C-alpha cells in the first residue's frame, strides 16, 4: 500500500487537469471535472446536517431553500440534481435562479400539493469552480 501526503494536487501540463485511470483500465477521466464541487443535506427544523463547500443554506420560505457556496462557481451552468424526502421536489418557478454563488431554489411539496418544509433536502453540485 502506498500513500501520498499532500495538501494540493496540481496538473503538470495544465494546472486544472489531472486524469485518473478508469475502472476498466482502458480510459481516463478528468479528476477535477468528476469531483463534486459542493453538496449539502438540510433539515428545515435543525438546519444544515452536513455539507461541503456550502457556507449556509437559506430558508427562503416554507418549502423553499437554496445553498450558498463558500467558494464560488465559475458560472451558473452547473449540474445539481436535488432530492428530498417530500412527496414532490422541483426547482423554483420561474427558474433558473442559480448564480455563481448559490444553487437554484429547491421546492418541496406535500401530498396535497402545498409547499412544505422537509427534514431531508439533499443537493450535489458538479461544475467548474471559479
Amino acid at each position, binding site marked *: *500500500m*502506498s*500513500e*501520498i*501526503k*499532500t*495538501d494540493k*494536487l496540481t*496538473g*503538470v*501540463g495544465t494546472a486544472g487537469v489531472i486524469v*485518473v*485511470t*478508469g*475502472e*476498466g483500465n*482502458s*480510459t*481516463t*477521466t*478528468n*479528476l477535477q*471535472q*468528476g*469531483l*463534486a464541487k459542493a453538496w449539502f443535506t438540510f433539515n428545515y427544523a435543525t438546519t444544515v446536517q452536513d455539507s461541503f463547500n456550502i457556507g449556509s443554506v437559506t430558508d427562503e420560505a416554507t418549502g423553499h431553500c437554496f445553498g450558498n457556496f463558500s467558494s464560488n462557481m465559475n*458560472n451558473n*451552468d*452547473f*449540474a*445539481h*440534481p*436535488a*432530492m428530498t424526502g417530500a412527496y*414532490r*421536489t*422541483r*426547482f*423554483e*418557478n*420561474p*427558474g*433558473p435562479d442559480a448564480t455563481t454563488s448559490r444553487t*437554484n431554489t429547491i*421546492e418541496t*411539496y406535500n401530498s396535497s*400539493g402545498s409547499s412544505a418544509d422537509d427534514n431531508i433536502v439533499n443537493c*450535489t453540485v*458538479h*461544475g*467548474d469552480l471559479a
Partner: protein
Amino acid sequence: MALGKIKADTLEHSTAGLVDTKFVVDGSAKAWTNFVGTGTAAINRSSNSSGLTDNGTGDYTVSFTTNLVDANFSFAMAANQTSTGTGMVTGDSGHQTTLTAGSIRWGFTGSSSNTITDVTTGSVMVHGDLA
C-alpha cells in the same frame, strides 16, 4: 512536457483527513451535463458528454464521450421550468429512462401532471465505472 503518473492507494491532507484513492476513482462523477431544453436543445456545459439529442417534447438523450463499462450506472436529474405547475420528475409512462454504456435517455414530466414537458434548463449526472 511529459506528464507523470502517480500510483497510490491513499491521499492524505494535512488537516482534512485522508481518502482511499478507490473513492477518487469510483466516487468521481463520470459525466455531468447542464443543458437548455427548450427551442433548440443544447448543452450549456458538461463533462464527458459528447452531445445532447432532443427526441421530442421533454425527451432527451445525452451521449458520453468515453463510454461507461456497461449500463449499470447511477444517475440523477433535475430541471427548471418557467411555466407554473411543471418541474422535475422523470420517467412518465412511455418515456422510461433508457441506459446504455454510451448514453442515457429520459423524459421530464410536469410536477403536477404526468405530461411529458420541455424544461428550461436541465441537469443530469452519472456515477459508475468507465470502460
